[in-house]
C-alpha cells in the first residue's frame, strides 16, 4: 500500500492527541487531529479518514451528537474514547453506530488491536469455515468443532456463537445480540443472554470461569476473541 491509512483523532486533550499521534505515526498511519467537535466534523469531511477516534467529552458539543452527525454520512469505523464508569454512555454510543470503545486510561497496544479489528471488513468474510485454532465453526454444515470433536449446540447457542465469531474482536452490545439472535421483543432481557453465554462457555471453553473466546465486557456486552 503506497498511501498511508488516514486516522482522525477528535479529542480536546492536547497530550492525548500528541501521544496518539506519536504512537499511530510510528505504526504507519497518517494522523489528523481535531480539538473540537466542529473542527472534527470539518476535517472528517475534507480528508475522509479511514477511521475516526472520538472522545465523548468534548468542550463544544456532546460526543453522542457528534457521533450521530458523523454517522449520517461517514461509513468507516469510529472508535470511542471514554472515561470509566460510563457504561451507559458507551452502550448508547455503540448502539448508535460506534464500532468499539476504549476507556481512559488505555494501553496503546489495545488501541491498535481495536483499530485493526474495526477496520477488518465483515462483509468480505464469507468463508465457509471460521478457524480459531482449537475451535472451528463450519458455517456450511452448521458444525462447531473443538479440538477435532463435534460439539452439540442448540440452534440458539449456535446462532449466538456464529454472530460473535463473525465479529471477532469487536464488542457487541447486549441489545444488539438479543435483537440479532432472538428478535426485537427480547432486546431488554440481558439476563437471558447471560444465561446462554454461560451455557455456551460450558461447551466451548476449557475453563468456563476464565473464558478464552467469549469475553464479557461488563455492563456493555460481549466480545469474541479469536487468538
Amino acid at each position, binding site marked *: 500500500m503506497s498511501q498511508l491509512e488516514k486516522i482522525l483523532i477528535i479529542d480536546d486533550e492536547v497530550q492525548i492527541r500528541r501521544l496518539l499521534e506519536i504512537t499511530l505515526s510510528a505504526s504507519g498511519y497518517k494522523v489528523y487531529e481535531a480539538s473540537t467537535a466542529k473542527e472534527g466534523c470539518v476535517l472528517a469531511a475534507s480528508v475522509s479518514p479511514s477511521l475516526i477516534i472520538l472522545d465523548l467529552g468534548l468542550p463544544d458539543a456532546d460526543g453522542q451528537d457528534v457521533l450521530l452527525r458523523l454517522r449520517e454520512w461517514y461509513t468507516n469505523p469510529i472508535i470511542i474514547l471514554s472515561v470509566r464508569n460510563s457504561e451507559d454512555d458507551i452502550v448508547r454510543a455503540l448502539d448508535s453506530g460506534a464500532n468499539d470503545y476504549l476507556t481512559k486510561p488505555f494501553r496503546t497496544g489495545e488501541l491498535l488491536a481495536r483499530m485493526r479489528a474495526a477496520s477488518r471488513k465483515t462483509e468480505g468474510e464469507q468463508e465457509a469455515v471460521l478457524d480459531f485454532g482449537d475451535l472451528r465453526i463450519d458455517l456450511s454444515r452448521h458444525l462447531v468443532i473443538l479440538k477435532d470433536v463435534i460439539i452439540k449446540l442448540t440452534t440458539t*447457542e449456535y446462532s449466538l456463537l456464529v454472530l460473535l465469531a463473525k465479529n471477532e474482536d469487536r464488542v457487541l452490545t447486549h441489545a444488539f445480540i438479543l435483537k440479532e439472535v432472538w428478535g426485537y421483543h427480547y432486546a431488554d432481557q*440481558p439476563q437471558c443472554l447471560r444465561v*446462554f453465554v454461560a451455557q455456551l462457555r460450558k461447551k466451548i471453553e476449557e475453563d468456563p*470461569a476464565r473464558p478464552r473466546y467469549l469475553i464479557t465486557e*461488563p455492563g456493555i456486552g460481549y466480545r469474541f476473541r479469536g487468538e
Partner: protein
Amino acid sequence: MKRHFSSSWYEYLIVIFIVVVSSLICYFITDLAGYRVVSFVLLFVVSLLAFIYGTGPVLLASALSALIWNFFFIPPHLTLHIDNTEDMLMFVMFFIVALLNGVLTSQVRQRESVIKQREERTQALFQLTKSLSEENDISKLKKMIVVGIRKYFHIDSMVFLSDDIDALNTDGVKTVTSMPHNEIVAMMDCFNRSEPGGRYFSLYPDNRYSYYPMIGNHMKTGMIVLLHQNKFTDDEMQFWEAYLSQISGRFEREILNRIAQKAFILDESDKLYKTLFNSVSHEFRIPVTTILAATDTLMSEQYPENVQLQLLTEINIASIRLNQLIENLLNISRLESGRLSLRVNWYDFHDVINEVTKTLKQELQYYHLTVNIPDDLPMVKIDFGLIEQVIHNLLLNVTQYVPQNTDIIVDVHLSGEILTIKIKDQGSGFSFDDITHIFDKFYRGKSDKTGGTGLGLSIVKGFIEAHKGSVVVYNHPSGGAVFEIKIPVEFSNVNDVEKLS
C-alpha cells in the same frame, strides 16, 4: 360539643311530640289516678328527656308540660285559670322542679362532655407527640401536622418553616402556593415580629388567614397559617397553644439536629481536606517523582536496552499507582457526597473475578490465587463496578501486606439470598486494634510500612453497605486474615429463560 347549647329544630319537634303523646296517654288515666298523679308522670317524662336532649328542648318540654297540665288537667279544664290555691302551688312547684331537673341534668352532661373533650385533647396531644417523634422527614412532618389540625380543629392550615420563609425572602413571594401575595407578606411580617397576626388579631385583622409563629425554647422555627371559620373559644385556644408548642418543639429539635449534622459534616470534610494534603499529596508525589526521574534519565543519555526497559517498567508501575489513587479518590468522594446510587443488573460473578484478576495481573503474579465459585452459582443482581472495586481493593490490599509466594483463596457461595465472598490470605493477620478500625477512613495499620491513603478498605465498606451488606475481617485459626463479605442479592432462576432456546 356545641350541640348541647344549640340543638337543631328537629330535637324541639321530637320533644313536643313526646310531651304531647305522654299527655294524651295521661288523659286516659286521669279518671283512674287523678290529675295530680299526671303531674308526676309528666315530670318523669321531662326528667327522661333531660338525659337525651339539650337545655333548650328540655326547657321547652318543662314549659309545655306545665301548660298542658294546667290547661287540660287542672280544673277548670280547658282554661289556664286555676281556682284552687293548692293546685296553684302545685303548678308553680311543677314548673320549678321540671326546670331544675332539666337544667341540672344538662349541666351534668355538659361537664361530662367537657371532661371527655379534655381527654380527647390529651389523647390528641399524646398522639401528636408520638407521631412527630417517629417521623424524621420534614415534608412528611408538615403533612402530618396539617392532617392533625384538620382532624382536631377542623381547620385548613399551612406550615412554613424558617427555611421556607427565608426562601420566600430570597426567591420572591410569587413562587408560593395558594396564598395571596398580601397574606404572605403579612405572615412574613408576623414571623419577623414573632407575634401572631391576621384574622382575630390586632395585627392585620382584615386578612383572611391567621398566622401563628412557632417558637421553641431557643428559636423561632416557622409559622403556621390557619384558615379559621370561627374564632377560637378560650378552651380551644388553650388546646391550640398546647398543640402549637408541641409542633414548635419538634421542629426546633429537627433544626438543631440539622445544624449539628452540618457541623459534623464540616468537621469530617475538614479532616478529609487535611488528610488529602498530608497523605494524598505525598502519595501523588512518589509516582510522579518516579516518572519524572525515569523519563529524565531516558531522555538524557543512551542507556543499554535492558536499563531502558527497567526504567519504562518503573514508569508503567508509577502510572498504574497514580491511576489507582485517582480511582480511590473518586470513589471516596462518591461515598462522601452521599449520592452513591446503585446501578444493579444481572451478572455472573466469574466476570467480576476475571475483571479484577485482569487488572491486577502484575500484582497477583507472585501469589497462588485460587478462586472457588460453585458451577451452579446463578446470576446475581449487583452493581458490577462497585463490587469489582471491592474485590480489587481487597486483593490489592493482600498483595501489599502479605509476603509473596503464598496462597490467596477466594470463596464465593450463595446460601438463601445471601451472597458470601471470603478472601483468605496467609499473612500474619491483624492486631485487635487493626480489626476494629481497619475499615475506618484514613486508618493505617500500626505496622504499616507500605504507602497508602487508608482509603481502600473504607471504600470496600462503603460500597458493601450501599448493597445493604456487611464486611468483617478476622484472623483465621490456622493463620492469615479472612475478609468476609455478605450481601443480600436477587438471583436469577435459570428455568425462566429456558423458553427462549
